[in-house]
């Protein structure tokens, strides 16, 4: 099963390598990984999406907890939570398709963040399903460049374990 794991870590050099090394060294898979500072600049938050059966996920969370620089590990999948990711996509639609591309962006509540003579760059935010759906629909319009952030996640207020 796929799990989204949120990890608070010390904001030091080498921490990312310790985490990624843990996954590669033990043969676990990372589907996506995001890192950013928290309100406290000494602490970073990582959101890792990984898959595995219960035993593997248990090992992953325990092994993460065991790393000296890890402050807190939360398996978001066990909680009621909100997930978001963002894509930036540069498309070069034919003249007659331009309106359709803009409409698609609108339907997905995206924004045009850059436009040139031949391209639009669109920004779409949402959960995985929405992002996947958007990608499917935008594919026919000649994608030039594509960038995807990976997930970030946060728990809802006052939630307990599912």
């Amino acid at each position, binding site marked *: 099963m796929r799990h989204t794991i949120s990890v608070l*870590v*010390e904001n030091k050099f*080498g921490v990312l*390598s*310790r985490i990624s*090394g843990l996954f590669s*060294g033990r043969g676990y898979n990372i589907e996506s990984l995001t890192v950013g500072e928290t309100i406290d600049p000494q602490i970073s938050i990582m959101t890792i999406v990984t898959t595995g059966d219960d*035993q593997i996920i*248990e*090992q992953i969370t*325990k*092994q993460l*907890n*065991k790393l*000296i*620089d*890890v*402050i807190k590990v939360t398996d978001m999948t066990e909680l009621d939570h909100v997930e978001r990711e963002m894509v930036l996509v540069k498309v070069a639609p034919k003249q007659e398709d331009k309106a359709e591309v803009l409409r698609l962006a609108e339907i997905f509540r995206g924004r045009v963040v850059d436009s040139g003579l031949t391209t639009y760059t669109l920004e779409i935010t949402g959960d995985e399903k929405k992002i996947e759906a958007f990608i499917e629909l935008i594919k026919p319009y000649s994608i030039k460049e594509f960038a995807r952030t990976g997930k970030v996640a946060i728990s809802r207020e006052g939630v307990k374990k599912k």
Partner: protein
Amino acid sequence: MKLSGAEIFIECLKKEKVNTIFGYPGGVVLNIFDVLYDDKDLKLILTRHEQGAVHAADGYARASGKPGVALVTSGPGATNTVTGIANASMDSIPVIVFSGQVPTLLIGNDAFQEADIVGITRPCTKYNFLVKDVNDLSRIVREAFYIATTGRPGPVLIDLPKDVTSGKADFLWPEKIRIRSYNPIYEGNRWMITQAANEISKAKKPIILSGGGVILSGGHKEVKELAEYAQVPVTMTLMGLGGFPGTHALSLGMLGMHGTYYANMAIQNSDLIVAIGARFDDRVTGKVDAFAPHAKIIHIDIDPTSIRKNVRVDIPIVGDVKLVLRDIIKILKEKGKIQWVEIRKAWLKKIDEWKKERPLTYQKDDIVIRPQFVIEKIYEITKGDAIITTEVGQNQMWTAQFFKFDKPRTLLTSGGLGTMGYGFPAAIGAQLAFPDKLVIDIAGDGSIQMNIQELATAVIHKLPVKVAILNNQYLGMVRQWQELFFRERYSYSHLDVAPDFVKVAEAYGAVGFRATKPSEVEPIIKDAIKIKKTVFMDFRVNWKEKVYPMVPAGGAIDQMLYEEEENKPEKKLRAVK
């Protein structure tokens, strides 16, 4: 007054009560070596290879329970420590390695003797540091010792760039230390502990599986108390030997691939396993799906990741084994009078039958020296009162089988990593920790050649370490596998060109003996012990000898091969994969 980084380093070691370190100099650590030159309180043992330095520090730590310290230079000096560090990591030994590094400004420039040792050792240390500012040095050293020695112990590496050891700073020593992201759990969960006590009192066929964690935590008295109080037989992992007296009536010796018949049978037929500070290594469990099919498992370990990593666990208890066992014993005693002896009678009788059915044996011989005979003689002559180190392979397994370890920290052996070349430098480290104790490395002719250069270290420091080489002119364990599972195709396992170990010893200024007949074994061991010098004993042993019982890799641990099946071809076929 400001001190140099090198001086701060030395002060830190003294604050940590270190008086012996192992090391090897080189370009970027000369600042430190220059300060050491004048220091009267801190002794550096110059090994002849950095790997030897780390193994010696490791042996020092295992024997004494105090952290071992090594100091090496950058680049090749640092990379040579990697095997020693990985070895300490697998066996949870508190070793602190200080490596020199090129000046901070040159880091990343592929400078002379530069290696990214922090990157290289990241997966095999408990933690590692690169010191970038001399002002951080004392705090980092403090944290390193704290991390290495608390929780599940392990090696820590500190990389010291040259400009950090030459830079100046005030020496500030943080007395108290707290790392917010590192809080080992020592007290076990009360509810789980109660459950465990209940299971122990309910079980009909319980067994204690005692591991290296018992020795690391100093919980050997508690294991004995629990075993005796609740009449539970005890088997040990290789790392756990000495955690419970090997001569005790409740001892079943070692279990696993080369474990005793009765330990493996007891595990497979038990209804409750109390695993204490053990991590269910594949050499212990054999085929996991077939491991202890009828048993509930209580698993006590300070490292949560050890629990449910390899086997299913019914009652997990994270905590220090010593404290957890005390709690369990207390609850058991509060339960009032239980007729333990009566309850366990049938189970212990069954185990006795297994013990009689297949004790550990080997062919007695008047003509050729049997390696097991040498170990039995060492045991008899020393009466078990010695620190024994081993190399890896047959020598290690026969030692585990035929030497009865009654006390913790008397067997130093490379369990997890299986490092040939560990035993001799480890013996040097142990001898430095206990100058008056008898320290014997039981070696093979293959393993001893992997760190034989440390003869110089032993001789120059007048260390009376004894090395018993079970010389069969083969990489014996490799040969054994090739005989049993590879149709006797002895591919590259024959060490037919070997040095004359007696002459090698003499060339270094040590003493060398050789025994070619069984009758020579005892006198040579006695002489070696009498001489207060480093001694090599070259025992020419039966080259065909194999370690039995043996569980073929991937088999269930009650599917063992035995010595008496040697000449039955149909039995041999079963083992061929």
